């Protein structure tokens, strides 16, 4: 609750700060605001509250998810470096939009009423459409924004239709009301209810880029400025999964037999589509887009199984995935900028390709280490956080007895190793013309923090589990 209020106010303040001549105050101010929101978030720790006539709720789970999105945004904003390279950029607006979008994300995490879910999704999505197209003079960025908007509008329509049908069947927008209607599943429920549930699910699955609703993802992630790709692939995904988890766990456990199998099939398709397609990519950024689809698949395992372990599995996985992804995109931004200055070519295809990383680790050991740690974590190699994330996910599937899904997931993780290790091989075993890259202190802190968090959680996963 507190973060929503604080972030809304801060975002407005940021817009006014944009009138100042100096841009340099914006980045520290935004970071400060995020830290304030993070602290305020934990004020209600160990208490459960309902706000605004049971529209929103805060409990420990929602606070942990909120903390993850705030931490991710903090890291992303820290890596943005005030957009000092880009004269045409408008950092005040960007930061304000990020803060506004966080409000939407937190509403998606803590909603108790489908209306709040819809409002949250829209706040977040509209903000994302703008950020995707923020590189106004770049055709790719424009194209991506338009695509995202069209597809997103389509998905929103379906989702809203689903909510309407659910209301029609159960007579309620609240999760508790829908749950009490669904609890009579034995006596038979109206067909409209099931149709509504499916359409709502499709809408949300689109937002987390699960296959076969994932087609927008590679184009949008590839076209958006890298910093916003990092934001989208972490914050939006975490918020989307928190929303799905809350929805399914609070309202639809009674009809698990209806949607469980659908989610399991969607999970399998997502895993295969994401991992297999990533193999053929030559652009690192595009590979990361497919990788984010595949991780949506791993996260879906926990939803498709929906067992007692699912909550902590999804929390742990989102955190591990967010940290690794942000640090990978951070390194990519540095490498791309360096290549752009070196070769004076703005051809993004060569600057963002795997070849751009050749020999990186020799001249830039920190960047090499940060990237290698992220890749190992994303691939799920032991002693990184990603390993335990996958482990918890897989154990939820075992608990539910979905062995076939587990087999698919394990095989696809093996495929994943192929493309994640391509970067490591390029950095450590190939020769390239990379020169030492100047790293600003903020960047250095973020990367070091990401390495420590990833390995720390990999060595002692219990640290986080003890939290809630």
């Amino acid at each position, binding site marked *: 609750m507190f973060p929503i209020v604080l972030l809304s106010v801060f975002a407005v303040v940021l817009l006014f700060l944009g009138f100042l001549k100096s841009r340099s105050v914006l980045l520290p101010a935004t970071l400060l605001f995020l830290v304030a929101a993070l602290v305020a978030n934990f004020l209600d720790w160990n208490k459960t509250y309902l706000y605004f006539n049971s529209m929103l709720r805060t409990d420990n789970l929602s606070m942990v998810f909120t903390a993850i999105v705030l931490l991710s945004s903090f890291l992303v904003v820290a890596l943005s470096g005030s957009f000092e390279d880009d004269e045409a950029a408008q950092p005040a607006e960007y930061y304000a939009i990020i803060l506004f979008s966080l409000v939407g994300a937190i509403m998606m995490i803590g909603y108790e009423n489908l209306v709040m879910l819809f409002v949250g999704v829209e706040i977040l999505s509209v903000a994302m459409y703008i950020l995707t197209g923020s590189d106004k003079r770049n055709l790719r960025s424009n194209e991506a924004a338009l695509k995202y908007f069209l597809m997103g509008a389509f998905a929103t329509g379906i989702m809203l239709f689903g909510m309407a049908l659910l209301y029609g069947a159960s007579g309620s927008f609240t999760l508790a009301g829908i749950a009490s209607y669904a609890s009579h599943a034995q006596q038979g429920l109206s067909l409209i209810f*099931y149709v509504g549930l*499916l359409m709502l699910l*499709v809408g949300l699955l689109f937002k987390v880029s699960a296959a076969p609703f994932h087609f927008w993802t*590679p184009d949008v992630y590839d076209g958006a400025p890298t910093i916003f790709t990092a934001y989208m692939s972490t914050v939006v995904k975490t918020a989307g999964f928190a929303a799905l988890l809350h929805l399914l766990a609070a309202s639809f456990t009674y009809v698990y037999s209806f949607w469980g199998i659908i989610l399991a099939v969607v999970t399998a398709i997502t895993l295969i589509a994401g991992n297999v*397609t990533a193999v*053929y990519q030559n652009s690192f950024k595009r590979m990361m887009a497919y990788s984010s689809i595949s991780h949506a698949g791993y996260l879906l395992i926990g939803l498709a199984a929906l067992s007692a372990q699912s909550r902590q599995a999804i929390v742990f996985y989102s955190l591990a995935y967010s940290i690794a992804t942000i640090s990978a995109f951070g390194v990519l931004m540095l490498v791309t900028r360096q290549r752009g200055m070196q070769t004076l070519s703005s051809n993004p295809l060569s600057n963002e390709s795997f070849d751009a990383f050749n020999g990186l680790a020799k001249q830039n050991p920190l960047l090499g280490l940060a990237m290698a740690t992220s890749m190992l974590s994303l691939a799920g190699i032991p002693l990184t956080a990603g390993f335990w994330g996958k482990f918890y996910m897989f154990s939820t599937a075992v608990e539910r007895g979905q062995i076939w899904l587990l087999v698919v997931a394990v095989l696809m993780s093996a*495929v994943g190793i192929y493309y994640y290790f391509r970067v490591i091989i390029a950095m450590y075993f190939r020769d390239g013309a990379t020169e030492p890259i100047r790293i600003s202190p903020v960047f250095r802190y973020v990367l070091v923090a990401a390495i420590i968090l990833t390995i720390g959680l990999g060595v002692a*996963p219990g640290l986080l*589990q003890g939290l809630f």
Partner: protein
Amino acid sequence: MQIGLLCALIPLLPLLGFVINGVGFRRVPTGLVGGIATLAVLASFLIVVSLFMSFPAEGGPQIVPLFDWISVGDLHIPFSFQIDQLSLLMLLVVTGVGTLIHLYSIGYMHHDEGFGKFMAFLNLFIFFMLLLVMGANYVIMFIGWEGVGLCSYLLIGFWNKNVSYNNAARKAFVMNRIGDLGFLLGIFTIINTFGTVEYVDVFKQATSLPMGDTTVLVIALLLFVGAMGKSAQVPLYTWLPDAMAGPTPVSALIHAATMVTAGIYMVVRSNVLYTLAPQALEVVGIIAIITALLAASIGLLQNDIKKVLAYSTVSQLGYMFLGLSATAYTAGMFHVITHAFFKALLFLGAGSVIHAMSNEQDIRKMGGLRKALPVTFITFAIGTWAISGLPPFAGFFSKDEILAHVFEHSKVLWALGVLGSGLTSFYMFRLLFLTFFGEFRGTAEQKHHLHESPATMTIPLIILAILSAVGGALNLPGGGWLSHFLEPIFEGSRQVNPEAFAESTIEHSTEYVLMAVSAGVALLALIAAYVMYISRKAVPASDEADRSMPEQVIYNKYYVDELYEAAIVRPIRSMGDTFYSFGEFAVDGLVNGVAWLVKQSSAQLRRLQSGSIGFYVFAMVLSIVLIFALRFFIRF
């Protein structure tokens, strides 16, 4: 201060030392390196002493939880330390002897170009050893167990420009790995049986099991396989003599005083399980006596000053296990402590000799060193006296206590034990006489260079000599301090098998006779050595000299290394070659085939990503239709 913080500091300080010296290798000034490393361990020692002082006399174990570490299903493994009588004793030995050896290393190693690296590794070793000893469950012990193995590997091969040293390091690593597999399987069996790895819970559950339970027997044997590797018992002992390739302080710290006794610590820690499985104890006893005699007999004819000490270590470890096999856990621990004192002393003394002799280790080229190295000579003599089991020094009391318990258990084992003790006395005095008495047999240049070692090296020698001399007072015969102190540790064992812990049935007169016999045998061996090497001035023959058949066999260490090479290493290697030539074709074909398949499907799937929104929307609608069809029209 909080006990939790104190306990965490004990291993963290050496780790900090490792980080400073390791990260700052080549940057930290050489003068500071030794000081930082030694102070880190000394500080840990002082904390341990304060914990020891404040520990209630008959208190139960104090568990210090640090954080939840791994939770998987029903299995919870916290990261916690256990402070009780046993861990406190081991902590005192590890940090105390460790501090002395760190101090000694400053004098011994400071000329070496890798001095910083060396001290960093020593600190890291202490860190892992402390984890091993302090951990409150088998998993933390295992981490420490693997960690000390790693450090041992790094330090044996410390001078890594020498190929044979690297081979020795690798041999130690591989042999330990065989033992570790047993240990690991033991832990898995424990998890499977008890559902926990916490000592307190495991032993509490175990006390309700019947004597001779098969699962417990399996666990005990598997754990002992681990102990065989780490504590160099037959058949996994051959790595320890080779491990002498490492710098001498390493031999003293890791391969004599601390790491190799980890196996004994583990068995004593798990004493409830072993008491429940008498058959396992029988196995331990047989292996122990074979090890003790075999190693002692090899020691008789070795000519490398460190090799003699290495075989003596193997043999003494055998004695410790022998004591454990007679459920004389206290006696075993007592010998661990006294052995840590006198064996560290002997190794450090040997290091001082090697230092003075410009890296010469062959005792045939020494002799008469007592005039040039008076401090080393006196302390070495005290160590020899102690290890030989002659009164009144430490070794006499601990070895006698073991032998007295073994006598109660089995007369045959006792007789063999006394024989081994005689052998020990003989080869140790042979070493002493050949090194320090008679005429100098080295080159003139070496003779010119002879000198006593600096104070950083002699002070540890003197302290250890005092400890070796009076260490026996810890547990005087007839209910000493140590057996009283350790009593709470064996509460569980006493519960499951009261007979084994009943008051000794031997009368005092018998006990004195036993003492007299073993001391007498040792004394006889001393006289024999005196006659051979001082009166007759015999010097061992050179390597090429003709030897009689049995002598030849012993001189070549019973050809055990050659046997392993022929029976295990070569078959495995040829199997590897076979698999390689076959597997290269089959496995690579399979792997590449799968990779090709994935890549092809990737190329096809990629085409779906056409970039056209029309197609994307169409795919979405089609998917929704399919899902609806799946759910509403095709019922299953």
